[in-house]
């Protein structure tokens, strides 16, 4: 029994330590953003890496999610004679949930893993020690450009995913399922509000912070050579994905108070 509680206690302490380290990293990063010079070239490189090179994956994710969601919703709603309501359901759902979450998961897999592996490799090959020895703070050089790149790119990627998802849903509903386009659009515009878009972008910004801090932290704390880099990369993806899903629930509940869903 004692061993059980000891194990539980150790896990809780470990989790709190981890969260504490992430908070310290976040505070140090924002401190650096406001007090140190920004390396513009590195920041722009990250915009290209995170924003530009994620285009294909985000567009495909958004398009096929919007398409399949429109089809599934139509199959159910059409039985009730509500086929033209598909547009509203697809639009609101993609704005409030699917767009931010799916984009965050795809960016975690593509960018978070890459950040963790790159920084982790630098750690185990003494390149981060070399940076420090050359009087360059690793947070200024490695974390700040990535954090700013994510903060700028994620909301844009989420907006793109939502736009493509809604367009794909429209194409499937009107083109394949022969829903009336006028009613589809009218319902969609009536039920989709600015607050849904604000909620999507708020989530995008928070998910960007979660992904970048978890991934960079995993990289910066990598140990034990190639095995350690592999482990850090896997943990970065798993932890970021879980954090996105868990935070999404609490953000939905919290933001729904400020930005309630549905036509008011």
């Amino acid at each position: 029994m004692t061993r059980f509680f000891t194990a539980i206690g150790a896990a809780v302490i470990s989790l709190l330590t981890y969260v504490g380290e992430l908070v310290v990293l976040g505070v140090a990063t924002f401190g650096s953003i406001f007090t140190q010079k920004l390396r513009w070239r590195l920041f722009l490189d990250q915009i290209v890496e995170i924003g530009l090179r994620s285009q294909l994956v985000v567009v495909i994710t958004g398009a096929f999610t919007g398409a399949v969601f429109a089809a599934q919703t139509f199959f159910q709603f059409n039985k009730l004679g509500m086929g033209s309501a598909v547009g509203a359901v697809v639009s609101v759902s993609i704005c409030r949930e699917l767009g931010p979450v799916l984009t965050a998961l795809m960016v975690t897999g593509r960018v978070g893993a890459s950040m963790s592996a790159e920084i982790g490799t630098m750690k185990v090959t003494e390149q981060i020690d070399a940076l420090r020895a050359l009087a360059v703070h690793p947070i200024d050089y490695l974390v700040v450009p990535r954090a700013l790149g994510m903060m700028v790119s994620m909301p844009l990627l989420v907006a793109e995913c939502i736009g493509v998802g809604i367009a794909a849903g429209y194409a499937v509903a009107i083109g394949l399922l022969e829903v009336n386009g006028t009613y589809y659009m009218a319902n969609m515009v009536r039920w989709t509000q600015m607050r849904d878009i604000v909620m999507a972008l708020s989530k995008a910004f928070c998910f960007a912070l979660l992904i970048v801090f978890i991934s960079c932290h995993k990289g910066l704390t990598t140990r034990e050579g190639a095995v350690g880099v592999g482990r850090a990369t896997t943990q970065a993806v798993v932890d970021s994905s879980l954090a996105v899903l868990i935070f999404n629930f609490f953000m939905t509940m919290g933001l729904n108070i400020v930005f309630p869903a549905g036509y008011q």
Partner: protein
Amino acid sequence: MIEAPPPAVAPVQKTSATRRKLMIAVRGLTKAIEAQKILRGVDLDVATGETLVIIGRSGGGKSVLLKHLVGLMQPDDGEIWIEGENILGLSERKLADIRRKVGILFQSGALFDSMTVEENIAFPLHEAGERDTEAIRKRVDEMLEVVELEGQHDKMPVNLSGGMKKRVGLARSIVRRPSVVLYDEPTAGLDPVVSDSINRLIRRLQERFHVTSVVVTHDMKSAFHIADHIAYLHEGQIYFYGTSVELQQSTDPLLQDFLLGRSECGV
């Protein structure tokens, strides 16, 4: 140069180094990693302009000691004075001022693998705020000439041999003209010819730029070639400190075993 402050612990060496102006003074340095005590009270002086070689068995804490000298590791106890300033307890940002005076050559070279040779060497200049591309190019050319790698500007680290990586790493560490250069196993893993060229390079740097050097190695040929003084680190403490001649003349069985490469003391 600033005189070193009065030591908290009396230095163990009564040599010429303690009577000259000190660049580095280490007092009572202790460090444990997990349960293992690596350093158990190291006292060490390095005079301005001299080359001190730290020798000792593999895993004996030589590299750990070297990393402490530039603040890459924090000790459990003790003091480290660089040019009269105690660096212990300084934040990472305040350590930057000290690190601008100290260059370090890592065992692997630690080149930034996403940059070319030229970008690696120019990196400290860019970070120091230098924007004149022509001036940067000139300095890079000069450094490449010093380390005898002229014309290798555009090579990536992955395409360099071990010896070349160390030379580029050395060029990068001295491009800002530091007062002190630390070398972590500069000849490890290199063939005798390349090792000799690295040894000559270290000597040449000292003569040309008058830098203070601390070299960690277990290559005795290299140690005798470049050292003004040699310190033998044994079980976390400085067991011997003296000149190459004093070391060779020593009858201490532990030192003799190390010099002759015998695995068991006196057997």
